[in-house]
Structure formats: C-alpha cells, structure tokens
C-alpha cells in the first residue's frame, strides 16, 4: 500500500433516477500526500460536491457509490461499518460545509456545538482541560474565546465560517474537505477565511481538498489542481502546470475565460453546454460539447511529471489555435 493521506481510486457515484443512472462521478482517481492541498475545479453539475459527499460517505439515496475505493491512510472508508464511519467523520476526515451562514444550529451556543462533536467521539475532558482546549481551538482560527458563549445569530458570516473550521479541525483529522467554504462571504472575508484555513491545515499537516470554481482562490491556496468535467477528472497537475501549460482543451478554455488583469480584452466563454449526465455515453464527454464524437475509452496520459490528462485523439487540439493567437 501507499502512504498517501488520501487515495481515491476509480470512484464512481451514480444517482439512480427513473430515467436511468446519472453518472455524477465517473471513474475519478487521485492521491494526496500529507499536507498537500488539492483544488477541485469545475462548472456546476460537474460532480465536485458529489465527490465531497462520497468522501464523507454522507451521500444520500438515490446516490450510490458504484465502484472504487476511498483510502484514508490504510483504511478503505467504503469497508467501514456505519458506526465506524460516523466515528471517522471529523476524527479522520472532516468537511467544512458550503453554507457557512446556516451551518450552525441556531438554538445552541457555540460551546455546545463544539462539545457535542467531542463527546460523540468519546472525548472526555476534565472541565478545566476542556476550557483550555476550547480556548486554544478558538484562538487557532483567530476567534475570541468569548464567541463560545454566543449563539450563531450573534456572529458575522466570517466568524461563523471560522467556527465551522474550528469544529472541523477539533479532532485533528488527516484530511479536510472544504466544499466552497467561502461561497457566501464577501471577497475580503473570503481571503481571510482561506488564510485561516491554510494556516490551521499546515499546522495540522492534514491533506486538504478544496472545492470551488474560483480559479484565483485556487491558485492562491492549492498545490495541485484537478479539473472536473462532466463527472470526470480530465486534468490534474500542480498549480504551475495547470496555469502555465493547460493541456486538456477544457482546461485551456477555462483558463482562457479568466479575465485578464494586465490589459482589457473581451471575456471569452466556453462554447456549448456540458452534456447531460443522464445515460451518458462512454467515451470523451468534451467531444460531445463541440459536436464531435469519440466512443473509445479515453486513456490517462502523463504529459510531464505528476501532470495527467485524459487525452482524447479527436478533441485534444480543440481551441489550440486560439491560444497561440
């Protein structure tokens, strides 16, 4: 076995609907070492959040993990019993939720919401120890320990998100998943929250999966970036590789579509629409978008060290001319 903190192999998650399976995650694999930060990027409906749910095993029917393995250190999470999985949440793998504004129980004080999590993982403290622990936890996310005595509605959005981060790291998990942790915050608070997240993650040495579609934030935060498209991971590589040498046509277009800070130019979008994931045909999904077809199995190709793409023979040069222009 490897000594990756998190290793996902050939993960397939389907939503079973009356119209057939929606292949939300189709054969995704990636590895994360200790302390490594992966940014998962993709448009809405590309399966990013489904991956996050599957990693926590918190997906709800009709979603079913069809295949694959999620290895946290040496344990495959998919083999754990329901009760052991519950204990692994937060202590082994934790998730910072998407809706920071509403992720805290409105009728309970912050202290209780932190302590609930500790006691359900059989952490027993003496009272004084507990207070020290809570105070240090709050300070680690740059919050005043007085926040513990407040109710969620007495906090600002950024403070709430910090509380969520504090709860997520309270049991020192090996892996932290952050599903658009800053989506409800304004830009300045976003940056502060991401910096806090970065700091606590480095202190813990935990691997981190950051999900979002803010390329700027990703570039700032992540070590590695994975590009999701139509349920598949189409390209993964270091931040440098992805931004300097985007190789999959979708990645290329995605990066081109970012506004330029150096000079004015018209914004460029990606033509077409992503294909419906319902009964998606095997083969290259990006070809479908540009009205071509490739039904063959698309191979993973390592184009430089640790930089992989799904290389399709038909569409891989699409849009390249434009880049050169």
């Amino acid at each position, binding site marked *: 076995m490897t000594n990756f903190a998190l290793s996902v192999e050939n993960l397939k998650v389907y939503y079973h609907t009356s119209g057939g399976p929606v292949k939300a995650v189709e054969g995704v694999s990636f590895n994360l070492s200790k302390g490594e930060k992966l940014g998962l990027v993709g448009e809405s409906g590309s399966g990013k959040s489904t991956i996050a749910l599957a990693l926590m095993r918190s997906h709800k029917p009709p979603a079913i993990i069809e295949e694959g393995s999620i290895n946290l250190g040496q344990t495959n999470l998919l083999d754990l019993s329901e009760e052991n999985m519950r204990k692994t949440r937060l202590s082994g793998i934790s998730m910072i939720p998407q809706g920071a504004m*509403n992720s805290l*129980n409105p009728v309970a004080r912050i202290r209780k919401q932190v302590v*609930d999590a500790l006691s359900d993982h059989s952490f027993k403290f003496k009272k004084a120890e507990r207070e020290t622990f809570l105070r240090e936890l709050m300070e680690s996310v740059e919050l005043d320990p007085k926040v513990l005595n407040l109710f969620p509605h007495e906090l600002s959005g950024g403070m709430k998100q910090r509380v969520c981060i504090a709860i997520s790291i309270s049991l020192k998990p090996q892996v932290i998943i952050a599903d658009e942790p800053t989506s409800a915050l304004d830009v300045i608070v976003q940056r502060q929250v991401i910096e806090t997240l970065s700091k606590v993650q480095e202190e813990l040495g935990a691997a981190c999966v950051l999900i979002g579609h803010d390329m700027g934030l990703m570039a700032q935060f992540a070590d590695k970036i994975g590009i999701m498209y139509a349920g598949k991971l189409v390209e993964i590589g270091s931040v440098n590789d992805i931004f300097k040498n985007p190789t999959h046509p979708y990645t290329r277009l995605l990066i081109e579509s970012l506004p330029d800070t150096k000079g004015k130019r018209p914004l460029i979008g990606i033509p077409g629409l992503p294909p419906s994931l319902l009964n998606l045909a095997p083969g290259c999904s990006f070809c479908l978008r540009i009205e071509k077809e490739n039904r063959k199995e698309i191979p993973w190709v390592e184009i430089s060290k640790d930089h992989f793409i799904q290389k399709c023979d038909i569409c891989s040069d699409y849009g390249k001319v434009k880049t050169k222009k």
Partner: protein
Amino acid sequence: MNAEYVLKRFLLFLAVIVVAVSINFIIPRLRDTNPIKERLYQLAAQGGVNVGKMEEMIEVWEKKFGLDQPLWKQYINYWNDVIRLDFGKTIADFTPVINEIMRSAPWTIGMLSVATVIAFVVGTVFGALLAWPKTGNFVKIFVPFLMTLSAIPYYLLGIVMIYTFAIYWPILPTSGAYGFGVRPEWSIEMVLSVISHAIMPAGSIVLTSIGFWGLGMRGMMITTMGEDYMKFAEYKGLKENRIFLSYGVRNAMLPQVTGLAISLGTILAGSVLVEVIFAYPGLGNLLYTAISSNDYFLMQGIMIFVIVSLGFALFVVDLLYPLIDPRINLQEQQS
C-alpha cells in the same frame, strides 16, 4: 430576557384584554332594541294580559339594570364590574356567574390540558419520526393510519367510543366527572374515578388531534432536515440520536410550541361538544347550557373568562419563547 421585554409583552396583553372586553360591551348594545321592553312585552304576550303601566315598569327595570344611564357611564360601570369579577347572576337560579365559572373551570382545565399535552407530545414525536428516514416501518405504517382519525370530528368519535366502551364492553363510565357514590375529596378512590371518567372525553380529543400535531411536525421536520446545520451535524460525526433530537426536533418544534400555547389558551372555551356528549361538568357544558337557556350574563362571563385566559396564555408563551428560541429576544432588543 430583560424587564423592558416583559413590560412590553404585559402591556400588549392588557391592550388585547381591554379591546376584547370592550367589544364584548359594544356588540349587544349595537342592537337598537330595548332588551327590557322586549322581555316585558314577551312576558305580557305569554300571559295574555294587557298591562297598562308598561312604560313605568320598563323605567323601573332599566334603572335596576343601569340602562337608563348614558352609554359612557354604563361602560364605566361595566368595567367596574369586570374588574371585581362581578359578571352578574345567572338567570336560571341567581347564583353569581363567577361561582358557576369557578366551579366548572377546573374540570375543563384539568381534562383538556392533559388531553392537549398528550396529543401534542405524541403527535410531535410521531411527526418527527415520520420525517426521519431511518425510522422503522412499523411507525411509518401505523402512524398515518392513526392520522386518518384526525379526519373524524371528535364528537363523532366520542359517540363511537361511548358505544364501544360503555355499551358494547361496559368498562368505562359514560358521563360525569366522577362516580355518584364517590365523595369529592383527595382519596385514591376519587382520583381513580376522575381518571376513568376522563378517559373517554380526553381520548376522543387526543385521538383526533394527534394527526394535527403530527402532520404539522412532519412538515417542519422535513424542512429542518434540509437545513445546512443538519448536514454539518452529520459531517461532525454526531450520534444519530443527538442529530435527531438536539438539532432536528429542537428546531422543528418551535412553531409547534406556539400552536400548543394557542390551544392551551382556547381550552377554557372547552370542547363544547365533547363535554356535552359526555355530560362533563366543565366550561363547555356550562356555555352550552347558557346558550340554550338564553343566559346572557353567563355567556358574557364565560366569554370574558376565555378572552382573558387566552391572552394570558399568549403572554406566558411570549415570556417563555426567548428561552426556547434565543433569536427572539435579540430581535426585540434591536428593534
């Protein structure tokens, strides 16, 4: 909770009562008929006598009832009586109305508040369980069946129960609040008798209102389960029971509590039909007697009593609400 909050709520409570009691005064006086004249002519017609000095009699009676005074003075007198809890005397046997009310109210309060609380607790628990995906099949099949009972009017169910448990299997008494041979004092015999007499009237109310509470709670619980804090509670690796109770039910209950307060407040109006069917000596029965014998004083007295108690119940809930939902108090301070 601060003093200002309590004071504000109390003033609101007083305002509600003043308005309601005043309306109670105005409505009968909106009619342009003279009640005494009406009554005397009616009596005269019944007696078949042609009374000569009718006008004088009317004057005398009007003076006796204070109806000869200007309206504002009548209003002041009326308030004077209300504050002293003097609602006049019943027409039937001239006992003071307040005595009648005080005699009946405990039975109604006792029986109906227990019934309401039981229905609330059972209905709320069932409703929450129905919405919870991991609930066993037994509850999911049995409870909707129970909820169909809420489509049956409680007085009909009451009649069915009388037939079943008092006539077909005579195991429960049909009427009254306690047995004839039992002396009304604190004894085990008395307590058992009171309970056995209350089972059927309370049971018919409980069975028919569980559905109401259950459906309300189920809806609220489903909404709550879609909230982000429920998802985060799961990511936190909390135990199932804790997520269900402290995060789910605790939040979904808030509107239910308001509902409970309102129904506890309206209890004093009694479930008239239930009390009549089971000849239960409560306020509902008293109101029924008052209406059927045109006893205006008794009716008016019961009305005021109900208004005040409903207002009071809401006042108490207003005081308790900040304890249940911490967001309430804050909004009050900000406004």
